[in-house]
């Protein structure tokens, strides 16, 4: 069952078109990844999906409902929640305040206690540091907080923009384990964009490859892993 669908999306900035006729879907309860190199249009795809950027053309559907015209904060109410590129925490608020504001919507506030338990059990470090200012955390901890804040919003679909960026390999593994755990234990739907092909194919169930703003390849994980194109272009095999 497709939870999220992008249909015929064109988008860009100013005069520059970045996305060309993007069609994709993220099915319920699995991890869908979008692979591509820098500047291929991954972040733009997520910005359009989260509502930060309006597409020039096309439709975005959540559970069959058209959300194309809704601003970002309204989409959060419906359950489209993004962990943005560069984490975008509020550095002068404490860890706890960042999490608290994650549960800003009425829907999320009703589940505040259980969400907080989940976040603290996934990232015990955040509980230890709850009174520390977010700006004083290490890069890995900031990524944990960014994911934690998004989980506080009780996502129906979690959008993740390069969670591995700038993290040490060991931390990347930790973050990926958490994403896997969210799928297996919480039945969370995840749509993740990554440059790190190795790592993302490891946890993905289904994937798309984007090149120069166009989707050039898609299929279940096994199919992508076997693809000559991926081996050549991304895995250096």
């Amino acid at each position, binding site marked *: 069952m497709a939870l999220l669908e992008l249909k015929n999306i064109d988008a860009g900035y100013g005069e520059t078109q970045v996305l060309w006729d993007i069609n994709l879907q993220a099915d319920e309860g699995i991890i869908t990844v979008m692979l591509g190199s820098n500047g291929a249009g991954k972040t733009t795809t997520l910005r359009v999906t989260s509502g*930060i950027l309006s597409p020039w053309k096309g439709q975005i559907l959540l559970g069959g409902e058209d959300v194309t015209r809704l*601003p*970002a*904060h309204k989409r959060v*109410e419906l359950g489209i929640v993004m962990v943005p590129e560069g984490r*975008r925490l509020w550095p002068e608020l404490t860890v706890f305040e960042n999490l*608290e504001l*994650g549960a*800003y919507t009425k829907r999320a506030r009703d589940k505040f206690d259980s969400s907080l338990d989940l976040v603290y059990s996934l990232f015990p470090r955040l509980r230890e540091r709850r009174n520390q200012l977010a700006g004083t955390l290490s890069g890995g901890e900031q990524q944990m907080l960014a994911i934690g804040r998004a989980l*506080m919003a009780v996502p129906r679909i979690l959008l993740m923009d390069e969670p591995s960026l700038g993290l040490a390999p060991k931390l990347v593994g930790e973050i990926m384990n958490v994403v896997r755990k969210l799928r297996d234990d919480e039945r969370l739907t995840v749509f993740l964009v990554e440059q790190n092909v190795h790592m993302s194919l490891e946890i993905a169930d289904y994937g798309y490859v984007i090149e120069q703003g166009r989707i050039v390849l898609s299929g279940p994980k096994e199919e992508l892993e076997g693809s000559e194109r991926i081996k050549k272009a991304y895995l250096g095999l």
Partner: protein
Amino acid sequence: MDVSILAINLVNGLLWGIILGFAAVGLTLLWGVMKVVNLAQGEVILMGSYVAIILFAQYGLSPLIGGLVALLVGLAAGFLIYWALLHKLVGKVERITLKIEMSTLLAMFALSIALLNFYYYAFGSEPRGFGLWSIGVPFIRVLGTTIRTNILLADALALISVAVIYLFLDRTILGKSIRAVMQDAQAASLVGINPVKIKLLTTILGIGLTVFSGFMVLLFEASVTPEIAHKYAPLSFVVVVLGGLGSVVGSLVAGIIIGIIYGLSKVVVSIFNPRISDPVALSTAFIVLILILLFKPEGIFGRKR
């Protein structure tokens, strides 16, 4: 110099600085959250003074009621200013660019001219005030000098207001949302915060507090003329820069510092030439501004950008 004169001026500087700090709280919020530089700061302050004066002189209402009405009028004015002037410029934009900043600055400048001329038209250039009104005794003696009780009332109200607004921003979800939008508006919309709602709320609060401070300014000064806008507006800007953009506590502390510096330089200059003491004291405040911009541009409580 006589030590008691020094002490008196320190105390006066402190008492005035608290008012000055509170008067700049609205400015620091609007600037910090929305990058709106309120060039009508002085005239917006005066709105509160004149509302209380009209109610007192025309309708015989107690200045205490006048002060409360001034606050309500200020909140309403914030609502109107947002929808009439600011929404089109900053409401739906994700990042406030320099160009937008200049547009809001001009809009507020237009408001300042309109208000100033309205004050001259409606109230003239004569000093207006509450006359001999005071709660209880008009004066009390402290340290061998007399202080008007109205000044103490103004300071008490200012301190209470600063405490309330600080707690609001620090403890409530709405207050935290305002701080979140100040630090990263896009991240705020990604957790479901409606940026337009926060900007509207900030304007209502910022303008409302500024208008309310006009009541304290009037209590402190005993009487006002439209001209007083040109004293409080520039000093408010110095206070905001010294305190750090968006910092309420910074604003109060900076107000006290500027109040004391202003008071002290006035005393020193008076020894040589009393007639120029006011302008020289104002210049001293601006020398402080230049020094901050050179050596600590983020202010005392501001964060580095």
